[in-house]
């Protein structure tokens, strides 16, 4: 394993795409801007594209040939965020989480509201040795009073943190799951020939319960489905025991706490990785769920799996992935979609 990726072998267009996607705000339910950004990137390369009733962006590439299937690939474009519940007399905004937000990673953080307002997250005085809860936190927008506050109940913000390029590793606030959206976009563009009708779904509201993928999978009604999402790793000091690590290739999900990947899909993915001579790792995630579950349970049931991008510090403002894993994930996804799919 090389310690750092030489910069001259990196695809600058892919890096620019990731930067653009992670820096576009889009907490669950507020995916308008990120949807437009994705549409801009894909519209020249798709046969058909539409936005469904919940806001999922659904793009078709290819038509079903002999031996082809209808394949759904889902990467979610929403990110975790906060929603204001109350602005007090002094102009401090209380909030509730949108998705799985950790109070610890909030304190001192900066937020960007969908209306353009900015703020920082402060905390009440805590009892010694007590962990903060979200109820103890507030957003300070610099307002002097309630009347002066640029936000009110129901306003939504995302975390604000610029993209950081560390060479071999890339860091951003919403690698979960914009890095997968970037992987899907790159694969969509690179997919020159396919026997399949591939529906790339850029799904909404994943972080609040796989809601977008639920309705998208019903609408697409696929023969087989793949989520593309980040997964945890076990490669940092004194963390949970987990086989997955950065830089060892994209992960092929065997199971997580939301679903058991169809073993035929796992086998298909492993065979594709071997055929393309790509590194891969098998993933068992003890806590976490992806759009794969929603696809699997659609209609009368769909064989489904998940292509995972290993990611450190998930749901913090500094989620870290490996550039090499991202590039290999694109190659694996293209390989998966280019050939006839044998599920056995």
């Amino acid at each position, binding site marked *: 394993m090389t310690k750092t990726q030489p910069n001259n072998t990196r695809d600058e267009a892919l890096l620019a795409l990731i930067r653009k996607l992670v820096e576009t705000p889009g907490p*669950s*339910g*507020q995916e*308008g*801007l990120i*949807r*437009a950004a994705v549409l801009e990137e894909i519209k020249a390369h798709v046969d058909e594209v539409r*936005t*469904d*009733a*919940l*806001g*999922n962006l659904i793009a078709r590439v290819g038509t079903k040939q002999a031996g082809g299937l209808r394949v759904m690939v889902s990467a979610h474009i929403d990110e975790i965020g906060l*929603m*204001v*519940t*109350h602005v*007090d*007399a002094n102009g401090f905004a*209380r909030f*509730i989480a*949108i998705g799985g937000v950790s109070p610890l990673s909030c304190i001192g953080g900066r937020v960007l509201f*969908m209306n353009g307002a900015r703020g920082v997250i402060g905390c009440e005085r805590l009892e010694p040795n007590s962990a903060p809860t979200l*109820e103890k936190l507030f957003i300070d927008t610099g307002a002097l009073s309630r009347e002066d506050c640029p936000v*009110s*109940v*129901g306003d939504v913000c995302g975390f604000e943190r610029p993209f950081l390029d560390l060479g071999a590793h890339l860091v951003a606030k919403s690698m979960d799951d914009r890095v997968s959206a970037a992987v899907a976009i790159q694969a969509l563009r690179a997919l020159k020939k396919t026997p399949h009708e591939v529906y790339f779904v850029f799904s909404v*509201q994943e972080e*609040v319960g796989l*809601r*977008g993928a*639920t*309705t*998208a999978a*019903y*609408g697409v009604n696929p023969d087989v489905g793949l989520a593309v999402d980040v997964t945890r790793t076990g490669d940092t000091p004194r963390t949970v025991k987990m086989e997955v690590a950065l830089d060892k290739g994209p992960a092929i999900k065997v199971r997580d706490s939301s679903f058991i990947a169809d073993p035929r899909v796992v086998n298909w993915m492993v065979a594709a990785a071997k055929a393309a001579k790509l590194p891969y790792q098998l993933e068992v995630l003890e806590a976490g769920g992806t759009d794969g579950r929603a696809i699997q349970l659609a209609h009368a049931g769909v064989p489904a799996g998940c292509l995972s991008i290993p990611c450190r510090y998930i749901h913090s403002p500094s989620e870290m992935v490996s550039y090499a894993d991202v590039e290999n994930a694109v190659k694996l996804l293209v390989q998966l979609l280019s050939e006839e799919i044998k599920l056995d």
Partner: protein
Amino acid sequence: MSPTKQITQSSRKRIGKRQTELLAELCNALSVSGDEQEVREIVLREVKPLCQQVEVDAMGNVLATRIGSGQDKVQVMIAAHMDEVGFMLTQDDGDGIYGFSIVGGIDERQLVGKPVIVGREHVPGVIGAKAIHLTTPEERKTALKLEQLRIDLGPDGSGLARVGDRAGFATRFSEIGPSIRAKALDDRLGVFNLIELLRSAPENIDLLAAFTVQEEVGLRGARVAAYHFNPQIGIAVDSTPANDLPLYDEDSENTRYNTRLDHGPAIYLMDGATIADRRLAEWLMKTAEGEGIPYQIRQPNPGGTDAGAIHKTRAGVPSISVSVPQRYCHTAAGLIRKSDWEDTLRLLSAALSRLNSKILTPSEA
């Protein structure tokens, strides 16, 4: 206190004696999740003359369709749940004494000493407890647990109930000046409002009215009702807690009230089950502002309504909820303001009249 009074008094009255009597009949009926027969019968009686199609589905939802005559109609599903939180008898101890479990969300600390009614015959009983004379100061510091409580029907009641029967609070509907106190206002207010909307539905929509079952145990009825109707828009009409009493600690501001009485209908932006469609939220807020109807945004909080099931149905349904604020929700006696009830009905009615399919154009914000 109330900025709403003046506006309400100047507007057309929608709540009179007839309306209050129907709400009273609905609230006094017993309709615990899974056994909604009593409310269903009232609903069927009221909606049959108003709708082209009325059916009861496999789960017991009443599905009533009122077809509009206009062009470019929007298919709007409105859901109000017929069930209420309550109890189920689980154990027959003899002599009319029954162990029970809770159906839906009720704080078991609040059960002691409450009068109840059991079964379709409304057999009167009480959740009894040892009299204070016989308790020790130590005992009085701890709330009794559900396992320690029994419903007592008296020895003559033992033949009148059986394990599996539902029971509910015995509170009778009453008006207190500008307020109403009753059990099951969650969601008989919604049921009433939906019946009223059917009476005067505008011609620009097909109103797909779902009087749902089993909301309190997980939005179960709405799920199949939405599948059946396959609507373009979903609206849940419900009742939501108002925790708007002043804090005892006077230095602190009450930042977690959910909603407030006298501030009008509560429009949802997010709860535990749904992120409301922003286009629908704008539509409701603009309607309220245009018509001079007060409204409030329900604080984004956990909790859920039938919208949580509707919006995820089939290929997705843009959905939102509107609730009447209620103090002491899911207890023996809730308290609402008639003005909030009336304004909720006015808002829904005005909003439906303004609805057209342009609202469903994908938003890019």
